[in-house]
């Protein structure tokens, strides 16, 4: 006969055993309260504060702040930088994940490490690299001056810095996803006579679409919100080389708090929309039941 203890493991545990299997209601309540307090203090209160400070002087002032021409110039530049950086890094992410996930080649791990590098470089250093390359004293500085091309303290520098800091997002999302899916479907398509682009657009892309979208959204959030790297290369020329985060800094340092928080509230709204669409994508992907639920990356969003 089997010892009865083994039968009792899951459901019919003795009262004494189940008391040892779960925290008392008091402890559970206490833990929930501390967790809520911590998240409330660090996440909820700041979000409320941004909107409270932005609207502190009334809705009319708020409208004046966000329709200010300088604010609009900063919004335009932010959108331009993201509109260049995100598609570039998306194409790169697709190419890199196709090569890394579908093929075997020597040096693959080195390539993976290099792709991750921008996550572990301080934003200030990211900006500094481009100053060392293209600044007046930089490697190509002299050549650029004689040809009258401005990169640092101009829009191209901002775009370059943005591309660098958002570099890994799409690739990091797609590589593990494609690796998990394997090559079977692509190889089947190949034997049925499909060409390379046909396989890519008809088989691979539909399989990774949610992961791709997820990576693009996170890439975009970082591209629009980057501060340190862009700050180094921008030169802070108002109306010309100010992105939204830089504009927030200038307004704040000039003690124009309502204006600073007004522009900041737009960026906060972007962050909240990003989080919401991320969630929506996760639900859709789960609902479809495909093997492509975006994973919770550990290294993302540095």
């Amino acid at each position, binding site marked *: 006969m089997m010892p009865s203890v083994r039968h009792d493991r899951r459901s019919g545990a003795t009262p004494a055993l189940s008391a040892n299997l779960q*925290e008392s209601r008091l402890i559970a309540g206490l833990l929930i309260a501390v967790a809520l307090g911590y998240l409330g203090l660090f996440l909820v209160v700041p979000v409320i504060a941004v909107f409270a400070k932005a609207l502190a002087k009334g809705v009319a002032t708020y409208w004046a702040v966000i329709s200010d021409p300088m604010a609009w110039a900063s919004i335009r530049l932010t959108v331009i930088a993201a509109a260049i950086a995100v598609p570039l890094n998306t194409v790169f992410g697709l190419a890199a994940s196709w090569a890394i996930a579908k093929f075997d080649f020597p040096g693959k791990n080195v390539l993976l490490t290099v792709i991750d590098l921008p996550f572990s470089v301080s934003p200030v250093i990211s900006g500094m690299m481009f100053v060392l390359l293209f600044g007046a004293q930089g490697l190509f500085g002299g050549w650029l001056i004689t040809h009258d091309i401005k990169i640092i303290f101009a829009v191209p520098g901002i775009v370059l810095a943005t591309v660098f800091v958002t570099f890994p997002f799409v690739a990091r999302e797609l590589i593990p996803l494609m690796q998990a899916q394997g090559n079977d479907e692509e190889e089947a398509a190949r034997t049925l006579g499909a060409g390379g682009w046909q396989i890519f657009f008809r088989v691979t892309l539909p399989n990774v679409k949610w992961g791709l979208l997820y990576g693009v959204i996170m890439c975009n959030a970082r591209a629009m919100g980057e501060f*340190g790297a862009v700050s180094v290369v921008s030169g802070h020329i108002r109306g010309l080389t100010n992105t939204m985060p830089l504009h927030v800094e200038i307004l704040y340092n000039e003690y124009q708090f309502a204006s600073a928080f007004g522009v*900041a509230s737009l960026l906060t709204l972007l962050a909240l929309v990003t*989080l919401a669409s991320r969630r929506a994508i996760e639900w859709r992907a789960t609902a479809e039941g495909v093997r492509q639920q975006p994973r919770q990356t550990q290294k993302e*969003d540095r």
Partner: protein
Amino acid sequence: MLRARRTPRVLPGFGLAIGFTLCYVSLLVLIPLSTVLLKSTTISWSAFWGTVFSPRALASYRLSLGASFFGALINAVFGLLVTWVLVRYQFPGKRLLDGLVDLPFALPTAVAGITLTTLYASNGWIGQYLDLLGVKAAYAPLGIVIALTFIGLPFVVRTLEPVLQSFDATMEEAAASLGASRWQTFWRVILPELRPALLTGFALAFARALGEYGSVIFIAGNMPMRTEITPLLIMIKLEQFDYAGATAIALLLLLMSFVLLLGINLLQKRLGRLALAEGGGT
């Protein structure tokens, strides 16, 4: 392994994909990063030494490392608690809160910086009460710890969450049936299993905090020797066009980041091996 490489490639497009990838990576990552190394070779040893070990630079490393450590530590403790609550308990608003954990990833650092400063300044919503207790948060090292705690918040939670979700409940049941109290089970059975993930989350938060700039500079006060973080020191040297000095300090900061990255990778390999070893059970 070698044989797998020799088998003919069935799928097309490898040349195009790897060619584009390598070009892109070289142009945007390898060449810019190697510029830092190239620039540093033009600095004489004595100048390098003088910059990297100047009292002001040393004070900034102490502050950056210390504040990053405490921020990551706070996140390790509370992150474990938050993960436990999010995975094990049901309560209203849980999903919303779970989604909000990633806010520091999505919120621009400058916005976090000005908001935290406004909250913790001596006339702010939270700062005024700290002021009554005689605690100065904004424009002091404590403020830096607060900012770094904010930006590192998601790392521990997101690394622990999958591990705790897939935790083998039979181990807890076995411990309980052998007479362990709930606390003993947690301390002796659950926590040792979570430790590699907890350490990884801690290291990721620490590494992120070390290079952080945007959220810190508003709240720090930025006084040399007292509240000046290392990335800010690099920024100041760049603004003074002291590119050699900036490069020297950047090189040291990069070195610290890479040592951390290496540690994290080793940890994750261990984490992967653990998962593999327990693969049969779960």
